[in-house]
């Protein structure tokens, strides 16, 4: 059945919604918004764990360009095609994939409205829309300004634009990177980006400099990154903490300047990573709080703002879990388990949650941070004491850095298969 036809049929189901719920299949109907790491995993695991459940996934894009390994594209070590995932595996798993924009959620009537006017009814809804960029959060920046100063924080055209700018930059040029304050998507992401661009500069434009103007005073895997920068790219990278004047006050895209605590800095290429919030659909359905993110029950990822709705991935507030593809995948499985239990009238299973963030410094130099989480109703999601954490500070004969670079690629391939099939 084609996506359009499914949407039309779903629309007609919505019309008969007044009919008693008993008339529906016992297993129930689940709608998932977003086919990124979170939504795809939730949809696949719902079908895997109970093939009888009816799962419809709404996604605005025809295929998914992943942010993981998009920094490798910026370094010239990966192609956009190599990080594009098809939705064919989800269809093969029995998920009804509807291409379209979810424009509203009617929480009372339990249905999702699409931009084309069709509606899809649900018993349970999973919302995994990822992030929206808050362009206004940086004075002088805007969606239009991203054509001069790309964010490249959603992978695709923006990634290619930044790559082209880096390729066109003369040797001896300055690349300015402006990471946001916490919380944001992928805490180590800006620093992996700095590393892989430095790796490219070292090979092709060794006189170039990278200036990182940070809103923060410290960052994810900082010790590991800075030791690696010292060893691999001595003198190339200058990271300025917020307290030392790194916090950016405004940008001027026409002049290609960035104003921070110590005046105006001119870049040949400038990457602004603006502050973020849960995707628009979460805001319009009032699933987000004042801070822009969605509170959830840590045991089930059920929204605390609406019934029969689960919010997962970057959009959710998940205690100690960072906003990562790995977290979103783990949360998708927890939501799937909780939904199937609740449809069957059973208590939710105890959740198992973990996160793994690999970062590449060069194509042969990988580092990681990982945690397995403990979850309780009162304390929420916390890391397991005396476990998890960072790669060894000093590598041994095992050759940790090179091995972890290979495992990072293995992780990418395996999490892709686990999420999209």
């Amino acid at each position, binding site marked *: 059945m084609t996506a359009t036809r499914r949407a039309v049929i779903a629309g007609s189901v919505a019309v008969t919604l007044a009919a008693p719920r008993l008339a529906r299949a016992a297993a129930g109907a689940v709608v998932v918004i977003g086919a990124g790491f979170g939504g795809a995993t939730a949809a696949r*695991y719902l079908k895997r764990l109970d093939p009888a459940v009816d799962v419809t996934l709404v996604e605005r894009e025809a295929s998914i360009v992943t942010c993981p390994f998009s920094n490798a594209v910026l370094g010239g070590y990966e192609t956009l095609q190599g990080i594009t995932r098809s939705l064919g595996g989800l269809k093969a798993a029995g998920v009804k994939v509807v291409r379209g924009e979810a424009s509203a959620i009617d929480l009372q009537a339990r249905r999702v409205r699409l931009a084309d006017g069709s509606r899809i009814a649900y018993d349970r809804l999973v919302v995994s829309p990822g992030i929206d960029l808050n362009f206004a959060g940086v004075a002088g920046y805007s969606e239009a300004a991203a054509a001069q100063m790309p964010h490249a924080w959603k992978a695709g055209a923006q990634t290619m634009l930044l790559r082209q700018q880096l390729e066109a930059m003369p040797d001896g040029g300055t690349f300015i990177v402006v990471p946001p304050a916490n919380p944001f998507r992928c805490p180590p992401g800006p620093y992996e980006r700095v590393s892989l661009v430095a790796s490219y500069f070292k090979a092709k434009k060794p006189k170039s400099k990278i200036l990182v103007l940070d809103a923060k005073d410290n960052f994810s895997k900082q010790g590991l990154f800075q030791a690696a920068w010292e060893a691999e790219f001595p003198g190339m990278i200058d990271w300025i903490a917020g307290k030392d004047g790194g916090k950016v006050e405004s940008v001027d895209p026409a002049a290609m300047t960035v104003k921070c605590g110590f005046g105006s800095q001119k870049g040949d290429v400038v990457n602004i990573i603006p502050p973020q919030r849960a995707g628009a659909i979460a805001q319009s359905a009032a699933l987000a709080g004042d801070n822009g993110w969605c509170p959830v029950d840590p045991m089930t990822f059920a929204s605390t703002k609406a019934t029969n709705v689960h919010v997962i991935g970057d959009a959710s507030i998940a205690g100690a879990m960072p906003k990562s593809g*790995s977290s979103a*995948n*783990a949360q998708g*499985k927890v939501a799937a*388990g909780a939904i199937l239990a609740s449809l069957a009238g059973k208590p939710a*299973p*105890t*959740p*198992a*949650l*973990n996160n*793994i963030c690999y970062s590449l410094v060069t194509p042969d130099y990988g580092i*990681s941070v*990982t*945690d*397995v989480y403990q979850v309780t109703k009162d304390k929420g999601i916390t890391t*397991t004491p*005396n*476990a*998890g*954490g960072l*790669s060894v500070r000093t590598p*041994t004969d*095992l050759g*940790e850095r090179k*091995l*972890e670079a*290979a*495992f990072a*690629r*293995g*992780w990418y*391939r*395996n*999490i892709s*298969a*686990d999420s999209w099939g």
Partner: protein
Amino acid sequence: MRALAAFAATLLTAGVAAAQDGPSGQAMVQTCYVCHGPEGRSAEAVPALLRGQKEFVVRQMIEFKADRRPATIMNRIAKSYSDEQIAAIADYLAGLK
């Protein structure tokens, strides 16, 4: 080494009764798949998880946990699990076809 074998044997018998409060073996094993691939069938670099080999899995996890087997990351991960949870993980993996 013999002490380790005896320890592993206790864990093996601890088996299913264990981990009643925590997540199920299945729920914990599903979190391994992001690195080891769906059902542990890794397609690249990371070793595949051997299914149907409970004793092997328990022993590796104990070795990782005690930093006796050199590893890039499994030592950090294994330390997150109690011995009972390791038994539940190995039990579930052993049942996978």
